[in-house]
């Protein structure tokens, strides 16, 4: 998509190590996400995927190494700073504020923004994107159906005007139709120029839409290649992709 040799990465890990207590979780992880890319991070349980996301978002501070956001080292910066700079996440299982109305959920997405007009404009854009959401603005978000909740979750993340959107397990525990909607949404957002970093167990599905991918195993990046090459990789087939039935 983008010429990686010239552009500066939007988000970067440079030799990141993290610890939980005394225990070593991420081991010398290097990652780079360039503007407008759709990349995925694959790995089974316990590989450190969640920790990677948490480190990107500033919920975990690396022991050594640097987390770089648009050329700036943000190791010590809080989550809010990173969100302000255009990193945001659609969490696994949507996790809406169920007691708050749909509109309040969307507004909270724009919590750090001060440009009132811009917020209004973006709200309109989201309504356009998801007409069903507009119909339910004043409903408590907990009362929505699964598909609608997914839309609100994505809309909420978009309200932060992200430059890179992190997606945590977008297919986990969802009905087939929803998984499909979800991946379509991801592609749609991607086409608008937002970089997407997707963490997935369902490697087949993720690689089918991604540009590039990394494979994480017990805290170490063991594979780093284009999506096509990964799909063709026999080792990966054996350990993650299975017979392709799913």
């Amino acid at each position: 998509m983008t010429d990686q040799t010239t552009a500066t990465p939007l988000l970067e890990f440079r030799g990141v190590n993290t610890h939980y207590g005394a225990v070593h979780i991420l081991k010398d992880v290097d990652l780079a996400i360039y503007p407008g890319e759709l990349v995925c991070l694959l790995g089974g349980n316990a590989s450190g995927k969640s920790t990677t996301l948490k480190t990107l978002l500033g919920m975990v501070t690396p022991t050594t190494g640097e987390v770089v956001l648009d050329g700036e080292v943000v190791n010590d910066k809080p989550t809010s700073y990173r969100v302000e700079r255009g990193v945001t996440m659609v969490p696994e299982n949507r996790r809406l504020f169920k007691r708050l109305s749909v509109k309040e959920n969307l507004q909270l997405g724009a919590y750090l923004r001060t440009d009132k007009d811009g917020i209004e404009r973006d709200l309109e854009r989201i309504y356009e994107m998801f007409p069903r959401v507009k119909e339910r603005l004043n409903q408590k978000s907990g009362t929505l159906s699964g598909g609608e909740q997914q839309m609100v979750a994505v809309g909420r993340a978009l309200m932060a005007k992200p430059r890179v959107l992190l997606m945590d397990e977008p297919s986990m525990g969802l009905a087939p139709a929803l998984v499909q909607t979800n991946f379509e949404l991801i592609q749609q957002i991607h086409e608008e120029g937002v970089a997407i970093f997707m963490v997935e167990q369902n490697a087949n599905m993720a690689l089918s839409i991604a540009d590039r991918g990394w494979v994480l195993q017990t805290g170490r990046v063991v594979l780093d290649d284009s999506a096509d090459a990964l799909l063709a990789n026999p080792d990966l087939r054996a350990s993650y992709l299975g017979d392709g039935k799913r």
Partner: protein
Amino acid sequence: MSERLLTIDNLSVTFGGLHALRNLDFHVDQGEIVSVIGPNGAGKTTFFNMISGMVTPTEGDILFKGESLIGLDPNQVTARGIARTFQNVRLFANMTILENVMVAQHCRTKQGLFGALFNTKSFKEEEAAIRAHGEKVLGFFGSRLVGYRLEQPASVLSYANRRRLEIARAMATKPEVILLDEPVAGMNPKESEELTALIGELRSEWGFTVVMIEHDMGVVRDVSDRVVVLDHGETIAQGSYDEVSTNPDVIEAYLGRPAEEAS
């Protein structure tokens, strides 16, 4: 078909004015494996919660072997012979693996204070029987949960093994019907294939009747006698896998595209 085991008659549940389930009719015969599918938020887990007594329906009746389960506490439902697992795996994580299956036999045993304090003969016999049955259900999953594992806390288990232990725990309650809530969620293809086979054995070897919520259509296809599709708290289709998977309503609401493509 054989005896009707579980009948759900015109059942509705409302939470604060919102219909979680509406006019649901459903039945399970002795020895069947029935899958319940449907989009997220369709009320599948509520449905399970209701059968197991954790939620009381607003209307309608649940009959188990001809007797109503309405108003029973969850422990009484389990005692009647319905056991369940949970979508998000809820083990007693700090109890050992053996203790997890031993404690599940609570409603099938009866030793109280007296036996424990005076270490009576019947107490010892019962303890031994509890232990034996526990090991037997654990043994169903091969060598994974037995041996040195027996005395390990459940929290050390891998994700897939936690799911297995949860099923073992449900089996330990000596049920007639077992309710499995997304048994293969989060498992890799190999593991889910193996579990699919075991679900078949739950019926063939143990004689359990199985009701299962599952998103993995492959598993649903492989084991179910019958598939029930829920959407917005209502049954939209019911029948064999082939019937259901080609039903346009189901494709619209759940599958997103015909099943052959999806799988």
